[in-house]
């Protein structure tokens, strides 16, 4: 005799798993033992070499604490020494190294005597030849965001590498972007202590140029690849939430050829710094640079003394018409007739512009100075020499 039994499990309601990310603050009563930080890269890029020496800071109060009064030297294998001079109290030590020393194949090391008598010495680093940059370009891409209905539009920049076997296989790129941006309005009328000033349309503070270093590590090793070349290495992504891609954009790419040790140092830093909601989780890597306390080689300074030859490439991008710039901030204008009183002295000079009211009639309205004076957003009025 068989009795059939069945158990079927119906789920009527299920609510999705919901993961979340929140800010995390470190305990404030943690003890901080500052460590020496050395920011030193010698290049054949021409011009002044700069070495910055500081102390590490509390993670929650990341202030720059320069170390002044050090004796800083760079020495090559032939024993040539060059002293770096500090601009007073800044922790920045500068020197110009003659081109005759900065030849590929030369090896350098860094020596630092701290004011308290401690000495730090780096290992010798070799200057490797750097291949020219093959090409830098962008592609318009749409990236998903945390909101499934919204994608981020913008330009993803890429670099191609085509180095022969005579070059090393470890590279780093540093990027500097410059972009043109415009105020919302030209200056036409403003109010100050002297009363009203009327212009025609003054565009002298309308167009600005701003230059920024892109604070991100771009590193590549072609070890493990067939050739010492790479196609479409992703650089940074520029979205259309700013004016960067609206008018004109310029990207300067500097390519450094690294030793394996240097590459491995920066790669570890990069891995430790990248956003890592890793499904399986990883330990931060312990990173040891090449600058040691002369008395105790286990005590290392933070940072890596690198030596590299450099090749550069600049590309210019005209305003990209396919982008919509929907997310650009809009200047709010308050119609003069809606204002109870005019701006007072604290807001002088108070700039006014003409905007249509609800009846499409042009009326004077007041807006923030930032809507008229582009330099208030960190740029300069000076047009870069390479601007088209």
């Amino acid at each position, binding site marked *: 005799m068989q009795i059939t039994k069945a158990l079927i*499990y119906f789920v009527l309601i299920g609510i999705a798993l*919901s*993961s979340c990310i929140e800010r995390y603050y470190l305990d404030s009563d943690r003890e*901080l033992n500052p460590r020496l930080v050395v920011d030193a890269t010698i290049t054949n890029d021409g011009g002044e070499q700069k070495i910055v020496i500081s102390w590490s800071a509390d993670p929650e109060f990341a202030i720059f604490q320069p170390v002044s009064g050090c004796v800083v030297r760079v020495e090559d294998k032939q024993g040539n020494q060059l002293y770096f001079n500090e601009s007073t109290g800044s922790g920045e030590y500068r020197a110009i190294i003659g081109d005759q020393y900065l030849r590929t194949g030369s090896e350098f090391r860094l020596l630092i005597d701290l004011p308290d008598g401690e000495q730090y010495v780096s290992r010798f680093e070799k200057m490797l030849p750097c291949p020219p940059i093959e090409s830098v370009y962008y592609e318009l891409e749409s990236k998903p965001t945390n909101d499934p209905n919204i994608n981020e539009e913008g330009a993803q920049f890429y670099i191609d590498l085509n180095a022969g076997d005579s070059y090393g296989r470890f590279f780093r790129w540093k990027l500097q972007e410059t972009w043109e941006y415009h105020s919302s309005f030209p200056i036409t009328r403003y109010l100050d202590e002297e009363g009203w000033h009327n212009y025609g349309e003054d565009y002298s503070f309308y167009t600005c140029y701003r230059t920024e270093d892109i604070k991100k590590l771009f590193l590549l090793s072609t070890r493990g690849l067939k050739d010492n070349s790479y*196609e*479409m290495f992703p650089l940074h992504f520029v979205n259309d939430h700013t004016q960067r891609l609206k008018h004109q954009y310029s990207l300067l790419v500097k390519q450094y050829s690294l030793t394996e040790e240097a590459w491995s140092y920066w790669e570890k830093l990069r891995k*430790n710094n990248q956003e890592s909601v890793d499904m399986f989780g990883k*330990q931060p890597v312990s990173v040891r640079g090449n600058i040691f306390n002369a008395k105790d080689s286990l005590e290392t300074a933070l940072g890596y003394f690198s030596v590299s030859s450099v090749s550069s490439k600049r590309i210019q991008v005209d305003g990209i018409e396919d982008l919509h710039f929907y997310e650009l901030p809009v200047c709010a204008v308050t119609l003069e007739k809606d204002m109870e009183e005019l701006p007072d002295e604290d807001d002088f000079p108070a700039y006014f512009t003409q905007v249509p009211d609800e009846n499409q009639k042009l009326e004077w309205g007041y807006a923030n100075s930032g809507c008229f004076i582009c330099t208030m957003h960190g740029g300069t009025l000076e047009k870069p020499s390479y601007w088209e």
Partner: protein
Amino acid sequence: MKQLTYLILFLILLPCSLWAQQVEQIQISRTYDTVSFVDLVKEIERSNPIRFFFKKEWVDDLTVSIAAQKIPVPDLMDYLLANTKLGFVYQSPGIVFLLPEKNYLTPIPPYNSPVGEDLSPQASVTTKIEEKYLQGRQPDMIETIVVGSREKAENGKPVVVQGHLTDTESGEPLIGATMYIPSLKKGAATGSNGLMSLVLKPGVYSVVFQNMGMKQVKGNLDVRSMGDFSLSMEPQLQTIEEIVVAGDEEQTRGSKLGMESVSVKTMKELPTLMGEKDILKVAQMLPGIVSVGEGSAGVNVRGGNADQNLFYINDIPIYNSSHLFGFFSSINSGIVENFSIYKGQVPAEFGGRLSSVFNVQTRRGNKKKFFTQGGISPISANAEIETPIVEDKVSMMLSARSSYSDWILKRLDDPDLRNSRASFYDFAAALDFQLDDNDQVAVFVYNSHDQFDLNDYTDYQYGNQGGSVNYVHRFSPALKSTLSAVASNYNFSTTEKRLATESYTHAYSLDHYEIKTKWNWVPHENHQVTAGADLILYQLDRGQVNPYGNESMKLPVDLGNEKGMETAFFVDDNIAIGPRLSLNVGLRYSMFSEIGPKTVRQYLPGAAFDDINVAEINTYEKDEKIVSFQNPELRAALDFKFTRNSSMKLSVNQMTQYLFMLSNTISIAPNDQWKMVDSHINPPRSIQYSAGYFHDFPRTGLSFTGEVYYKQAKDVVEYKDGADFLTTPYVETTILQGKQEAYGAEFMLNKTTGRFNGWASYTYSRSLITVDGANNFQDINQGKTYPSNFDKPHVANLVLNYKLLRRISFSLNTFYNTGRPITLPKGVYHIEHQPFVDYSERNAYRIPDYFRMDASIKLEGNLKSKKLMHSYWQISIYNLTGRSNANSIFFTSEDGHLRGYQYSVIGVPIFTISWNWKLGNYANN
């Protein structure tokens, strides 16, 4: 003539005389003139299947004369005792108890055996069962089970009694069911085939049979000679199912330290995440078992790495026990019959991992009738059928489970996860042949598969496949052999396509072939021996990393093949020394050889294992031995009973591991490779000392266990910073070996019976790692000791079930543990105006403590006995308080500032209502 136990014992037997009346009566024919009573009954016992129980001094002076012709026993006794004050009770078919008085009502002191045998009761304390009878509260019919026959009896010599316990409904063998003889404080538990054996002297014993989820059976065991008995137990429907934590014989399980047993039925009551009942999640509510984080794959047992656990499902090793990166286990809980975890004292038959053995036995199919069950959860559906093929002889079980939707992923915020696809399935089939009373063959196959596609960037696939054939032959009740043959495969493949130029695909495969023979021998009542041998052949194809797509410039890397042979001989010897002390001495002698073909590097002496320091390269031919290891592993334990309800246990346990996992992630990732030890990598070894105290409070159903342990492991594998296991076949260049130290104390108060049941446990434990080689380059964390990723000193769990009515029950689970260790910034520094983190020593800090509470309510349908369908509602709330428990903390540089974030896997209460139905009534289970 045998010893007499309590008089109570025979009062228990009284009802049986009624029941036994239909049984054929023994009639005596004898003629004697003035013979001593003792000699007479000896003579009668010799020639008839009958036994007499009495105290010798009562009858010392008694002489009798009879001339009997086919006189029934009661009549004979009436006649013999007519002129004495002695009374008697006769239990058909062949037991006679003498009483000191004709109308004897109160208990008398224990008898001593007239022939000086030492099976007399040890204490005059009455047992729970006895009390019940004295108080007359338990009107149950007591069954007498007769083993063997009088004819075969050998004059009081201990004999082996074998019992076969089955489920009345399904006819399936009961695993882990126990028989306990209170008077002897002795018991036995059934193995995977439902068989148990025990050495007893002939006599009548009061026995109790117990099994999780089954009605307790009390009865008498009348042992006459070597022989078998069978007993069916009925499912227990009135009480809430329980998890029984072993460690105390009083409690149903064997006498092993650090052994846990989980009933699958327990999970019916416990709240679940998304309706998926998961045996590994239940295991994590037990002391000493934790995982790195919520939904992470792998468990950590007593401070050991996740790769230090061996998972067996019907003898098939499972090399990846998780579905969906660890949210669920790859073992379908619906087919689990029995689940044991050995985390302290491990039987010598198991080896090969340092921390634990998870041994899962599945259902083997109902031998009496067709059965089916199934379920649908928000993410998967499963179904199982069981059917007899030849009734009582051959049965079959088939089960399948598959995910049908990855809608959960679609609802996540993270765009990478939202655009991902995930699916899994598993399949199992069993065939069970009961060839005859002495031969049983079981065949089992298993397959599981997972696929996960992360936003078209990375495609992961992995699966376990395996088959096992298990043949049990019983030569006699005292000697049994088991022969198993197992073939298993674990494989995964990864396709990484985020960057076209670096895209690659990699496939990995591990084959495991095993033959194991095991012999159980019971030479003497106080002595049991298990011995055998195990032979495993491993074949690892670590795979090729090949370029993927036309644009990929990736150079192919062959990670190489490996072949290894693990052999082990084992013997476990259980000896009872007196009634209080028992010893278990086990030895496992394991050997491992790595076999060619392979290319092996030799490095410069004293130099780091890296690509530069290669001194020479040796090539080994096919089947040539490359390196071999031998390790004796001691497994010893001692058990001392203070009283009937309390005992102490000590154990020493050594383990060796020849296969480990290459993992540079905190929890197990689906592309973590198993790797064999080799010329440069020593097998990790461990020794664990543990001690436990166990106490039962019989009247309350409460039991307390407390265990402490100290474990030290050598040559545990840790990866070097930044290690990438896909770049080189020479794994020694990417790993380091160090010491692992773990210790802890585990406490658990458990209530298994009554409407209100559950357990509370607290564990204090530490797990520390030191990688301090002879040279700096062999150090991790500069050679300083650091806590492991799963070092959670304080863990407290509370599981409460309350059955308000038969139709309404509640369940509440509460979890607390110290946050896992984490490496945090101790400073920040700027290079080129970018902030970077100066990290602390490894794992110097902890994430915030974890706390979670889950609740469920189960509402049953009506209790009518005649109905077509029964249903119940279950409402589960996972993470009742909605706490966002940090799973990880990370720091990221944003616009030149360093910001810390904590990531929680589940930060809201998750509410699930489910409706369940089955054909039949409430009790039809």
